[in-house]
Each structure stands twice: as structure tokens, then as C-alpha cells.
């Protein structure tokens, strides 16, 4: 082409871009999750590995399938389905039957994402909806915990893992008894604390154990330190809004601290609250899900604190030992409202002008 004939192609300003693209962000979240997955596999062995693979594959396949069905180009390239799959696996008990994990993955993508128009429109965190669904559907299987660092975990599966589809999983009680050593039992620190022996004595796990992940629990929630480090990686790279985890941890800390001050005998210490259960994982990787959280600076704080508060309330007074999942889902549900009431004050408009919903 003659370079004297200009090619008319008007591009709008700005002509500079800086941001990481969506797939870059998503890929980095995956990188940040990989060490946690690695630790889960190290801790729980083959079953955790199978679980992670199962949910991830289920999520990817579901997304691909629906894209094919609706004649759209496949969207699995943006890694968001992978994130959903990994997060889902990390929140499930390590011995969770694989077929149930696949159900969870399918529900997560189909119900929360595809249904609403794909990435960017999932008003709830898909992984959590998937988990909440299987929690309601298979309440027994999802509260069956197995001990960490079981001997022979790299050579054999936890018996419940390989349950046939649509079949009740085998009881793992006998297996746990056989392999349990050094006092590692299947009970999670939270369950011990809540349903501890007798009605009054609460058994609390050592904070150091919680910090380094030497306990039973969901596949990827056990090591607070590792999760913090991986989350910090994202926050430093500005691929996660650090305000949300900060607000959520603050909310949980203050709420549980308040109760602890009122009655130190009945309530766990705030530190225990922060380190136990899925609070860390939820705060750093799920509540901070960009799509389902508010976009306004003030809204982000309210959202985080609300989730932290609800988590503690459900843990202390609810029927379940763990409340992070429900608290975050509630936060997701409330985030449009929070957003509507906390629109930023626009430059040059009155200071007190509240935006009417």
C-alpha cells in the first residue's frame, strides 16, 4: 500500500493504556491460588489433588458447554472458570466425593455465571454459590472432615473421595480411626470450639497451628500464613482491592473482640476467630471478588465490615460452626444496595448530597 494514502481509522482517546487486562488479572489470581492448592495437596494428599482437578475441570467444561450451546465464542480463556474451580475445591472438605464436587462446579458456573450473562455479571461469587448448594444438598458429606497429614496420604485416597455418582459416600469413621495418630483428629478447630466436649468447655486449637495450617478443615483454608502471603501478592500487584479483606478482618476482629471482652470464658479470642475456619481464604479471595463487591470506596468498607460482623455472629450464635460463606453471599446480595447508597460525592457537588436510591 502506498504510504501516502492514509488509512482512515479514527481511534478515540486515550491512546495509552496501562491496566493489566482481565485475563492477566485472572491469571495472576490463579498464580496466587496455586501455592495454596499445593499446600492442600501436601496436607491432604491424593484426595485433595483429585478434588481440585475435579472442580476445575467441571467448571471449565460447564462454561465451555454453555458457550457452545449459545453459539458464543468460548470464554474459558479468561481463566475465571479456573479460579472458580480452584476456589471451590479449596472450600470443600478434602475427602468430599468427587461426583458431588462436579455437581458443585456445574452449579457454580451454570447457576451463577452463565445464567446471568457470564463474566462480569455474576452478582454472587460462583464458587460460594456452588458450595452453598452442595452444603444444602449434601449436608452430611460436606461436614465430614478428615485429619491432615494422614500417613499414606500420597498413596491412597480418602475412602469417601471415590464414591460412585448418586451414591451415599462411605463412612470414613473407621478409616479415620485407623490412621489417626498424634492426636490429629478430623474435627475442625471451629467445630471443636463450638461443639466441644460438654456444653461449657471449649477446646481451642493453638493459634500457631492455625497460622501454619497444622489442622483439619477444608482443603485450602487451613494455613492463614500462606493465604495471607498469596493475597498480599495480589494486593501488591494491585489486582485485588486490599480494602475489602482489611475491612472484613477488621469487622470480624472487632465483633469477636467485643464478645470476648464481655465474656472471655464463653467466646473465643479474636485472634482465634481470624485464624480459624475459612475467614482468611474468604476475606482474601472470595469477598474481594471484584464482580460481586461494591465499586464505591466507602461501599467497600461497609461491605467488608458487614461480612466480618455477620461471620462472627453466625459462628457464635448460628447453627453452623462456620459462617464465612453465608456472610459473603449476604454481602454479595447487599452489595448493589450498598453501592446505591454510597455513590462517591462528585467533585463540585454539595457535601451532604445523598444519592437517593
Amino acid at each position: 500500500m502506498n504510504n501516502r494514502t492514509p488509512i482512515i481509522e479514527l481511534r478515540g482517546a486515550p491512546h495509552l493504556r496501562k491496566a493489566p487486562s482481565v485475563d492477566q488479572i485472572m491469571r495472576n489470581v490463579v498464580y496466587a491460588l496455586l501455592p495454596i492448592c499445593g499446600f492442600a495437596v501436601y496436607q491432604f494428599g491424593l484426595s485433595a489433588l483429585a478434588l481440585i482437578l475435579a472442580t476445575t475441570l467441571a467448571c471449565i467444561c460447564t462454561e465451555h458447554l454453555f458457550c457452545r450451546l449459545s453459539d458464543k465464542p468460548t470464554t474459558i480463556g479468561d481463566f475465571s472458570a479456573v479460579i472458580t474451580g480452584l476456589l471451590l475445591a479449596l472450600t470443600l472438605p478434602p475427602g468430599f466425593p468427587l461426583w458431588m464436587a462436579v455437581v458443585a462446579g456445574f452449579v457454580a458456573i451454570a447457576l451463577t455465571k452463565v445464567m446471568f450473562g457470564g463474566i462480569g455479571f455474576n452478582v454472587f461469587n460462583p464458587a460460594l454459590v456452588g458450595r452453598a448448594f452442595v452444603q444444602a444438598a449434601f449436608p452430611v458429606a460436606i461436614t465430614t472432615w478428615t485429619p491432615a497429614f494422614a500417613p499414606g496420604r500420597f498413596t491412597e485416597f480418602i475412602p469417601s473421595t471415590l464414591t460412585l455418582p448418586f451414591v451415599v459416600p462411605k463412612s470414613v469413621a473407621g478409616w479415620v480411626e485407623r490412621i489417626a495418630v498424634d492426636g490429629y483428629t478430623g474435627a475442625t478447630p471451629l467445630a471443636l470450639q463450638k461443639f466441644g466436649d460438654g456444653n461449657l468447655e471449649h477446646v481451642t486449637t493453638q493459634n500457631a497451628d492455625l497460622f501454619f495450617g497444622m489442622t483439619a478443615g477444608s482443603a485450602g483454608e487451613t494455613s492463614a500464613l500462606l493465604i495471607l502471603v498469596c493475597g498480599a501478592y495480589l494486593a501488591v500487584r494491585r489486582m485485588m482491592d486490599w480494602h475489602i479483606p482489611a475491612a472484613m478482618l477488621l469487622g470480624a476482629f472487632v465483633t469477636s473482640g467485643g464478645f470476648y471482652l464481655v465474656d472471655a470464658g464463653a467466646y473465643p479470642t479474636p485472634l482465634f476467630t481470624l485464624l480459624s475456619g475459612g475467614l482468611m481464604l474468604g476475606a482474601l479471595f472470595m469477598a474481594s471478588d471484584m464482580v460481586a463487591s461494591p465499586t464505591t470506596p466507602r461501599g467497600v468498607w461497609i461491605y467488608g465490615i458487614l461480612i466480618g460482623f455477620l461471620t462472627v455472629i453466625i459462628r457464635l450464635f448460628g447453627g453452623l460452626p462456620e459462617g464465612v460463606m453465608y456472610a459473603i453471599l449476604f454481602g454479595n446480595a447487599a452489595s448493589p444496595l450498598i453501592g446505591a447508597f454510597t455513590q462517591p460525592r462528585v467533585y463540585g457537588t454539595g457535601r451532604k448530597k445523598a444519592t437517593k436510591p
Partner: protein
Amino acid sequence: MQPDDLTFIFLNAFIINNFVLAFFLGLCPFLGVSAKLDTAWNMGLATMFVMLVSSLCAYGVNMLLVEFNLEFLRLICYIAVIASAVQLVEITIKKVSPELFRALGIFLPLITTNCAILGLALFQTFKEYDFLQCLVYSAGAGAGFTLALMLMAGLRVKLDLADVPSISRGSAISFMLAGILSLTFMGFAGLGGH
């Protein structure tokens, strides 16, 4: 907490056994009036108000019926009382505050056919609540209805801007949303239960 503790009664109606999300009561307005935030808010307020009034009326009527051993007329009386209570509320609001009437007016007739109101009256009778408990129960139910309605409205406004696939557009997506909300509220089960 005891099951007849006032706080527990409130929480129970408010979030644990939310009228809309656990009992499916008041689904028509829940799906119909949740497209916008301000209408949802007004509808919630109107419902809460009517709930309070009709719950107290139903309490009185039930006392009379039990007194005269006429329990078999309960349903007929309740529905009549609720319908007239709504009318009365409408007239009173119109007189007292025309402004409020303008905001709530169009919702009031809708409320008459809202099964949550009748459901509230029936539940409180089955649970044999006393006057104060009825008051708290209806306040909780109304607040719970408003909460569910507002959450739904927020989500729907957000989804208005989404590229929702054509087959799930409309009511299907509302039901799925309600389902996820209901799933979320299951987390509150057992709250204060020990």
C-alpha cells in the same frame, strides 16, 4: 434463647424463617415490585405497616372467636378483617398524610392479596403468641419482607445492565436469584437456637 423470647421471635421472622425466602409468602409483590429500589422500599414500608395493623386486629378477633367458641369462622373473619384493615389504613393515611399516601397509595390494594399478611395472622395464631409477641412477630415479618425485597431490587437493578441470555430473561432469572438468596438465608438457620 427461648423460642418465645421476644428477640428470638423477631429474628426468627426477620431472617431465620424469612416469610418470602423460607415460606414463599408474598411472592407476587416480591417478584412484581422489585424492579426498582424506591418502589421496593415503599412497598416494604407499606407492607410492614399493614402487617402490624392486621396482626393486632387478628389477635383481637381471635380472642373473641376463642371466647365464643367460634374457631371454625377464623379464616373467614381474618380475611374480612384484613381486607377492611387495609381499607382503613388507606383512608387514614389519605387523611393524615397525603404525601405518604401518594408514595404508598398504589401499593395498598396490592397488599390485600398478599398472602404474607394472612400467613402472618395464621402463624401467630398457631404459635399462640400473646399481644406483645404478635407485635414483635409482625414487625419482624415486615422487616424481613422489606429486607428481601430490597436485596432483590438491588440485584435486579444490577442485572438490568447485564447481558442476560435471552432464555433466562424475565421470571426465570428472578426465581434463580430468589433461590440463591434463600440459600444465603439458610446460613442464619439456628441463630440463637442454643
